[in-house]
């Protein structure tokens, strides 16, 4: 099972998909593309036990866990 955690003001929301279910994968991919490609959110592939992440720009249906974070910018 893949897991997508999308950070948000009310806490993160979780999307779970079965990599063998095309409908679930498509729904998760659509959400990923909306956030990452349209809204410029950052996506990181991490493992379920935490640890270091890897930044990705394309949806990976085989990923164990993805974290989607709002875009970053430099402050003053």
């Amino acid at each position: 099972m893949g897991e997508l955690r999308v950070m948000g003001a009310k806490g993160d929301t979780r999307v779970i998909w079965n990599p063998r279910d095309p409908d679930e994968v498509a729904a998760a991919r659509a959400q990923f593309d909306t956030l990452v490609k349209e809204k410029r959110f950052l996506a990181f592939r991490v493992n379920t036990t935490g640890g270091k992440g890897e930044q990705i720009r394309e949806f990976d249906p085989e990923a164990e866990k993805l974290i989607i974070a709002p875009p970053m910018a430099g402050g003053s």
Partner: protein
Amino acid sequence: MTGYYLATGTGSGTYYRNPIWDAWMVSGTTGAGFPITTTASTRVWDGWATTSAYQPTYTAPSFWPQWTAAETFRPQRPFAADRRRWEIQQRRIAVGRLRKRVADRQAEKLLMEHLDDEQRTDWLRNEAFDVRVPSGRTYRIRRGVAGNVYRTHDSLGRFTRRRYCCHIDTSLAPTCDNVLTQKLLLEADEDEFLRLANPA
């Protein structure tokens, strides 16, 4: 005030002198011819009360509407509606605070899931942790939003100190989500972090 209400005269010591005194008090003589000062000034009494055949004495019509108009004609429903609106507003504020607290806890839980044991202990103790990135540099991230990332060691392990400001829009996510994003981006793409960040 003494000059206004009180005055000193010859022969009679201190006495009241002012328009108020004159309006409330009246001097005259009793039937037996003695001088007397009373409060039965008709100038005041007539203004406050009057008499009629049906009601021997009642408050003069010129005062009664002024005393009671505000209460009599004040619409009660808007007052109650204002109160209700205020209560709803207070409840919304309380719910908003509660939701924020829940979101903060959830974000901190997510952060904890992505720290190693040493970082987790450091966070719980100091609300900060060190991140060693692939270049060999070490950064320290403190709880915060802006300017909370410090480079503490260069790639050779020498102590250095530089502060960076690079963060997410915290109206979109809680502070701990910001800290986790800073950590993930530093580990995944330090150059991108440094490109975005403003050195403070």
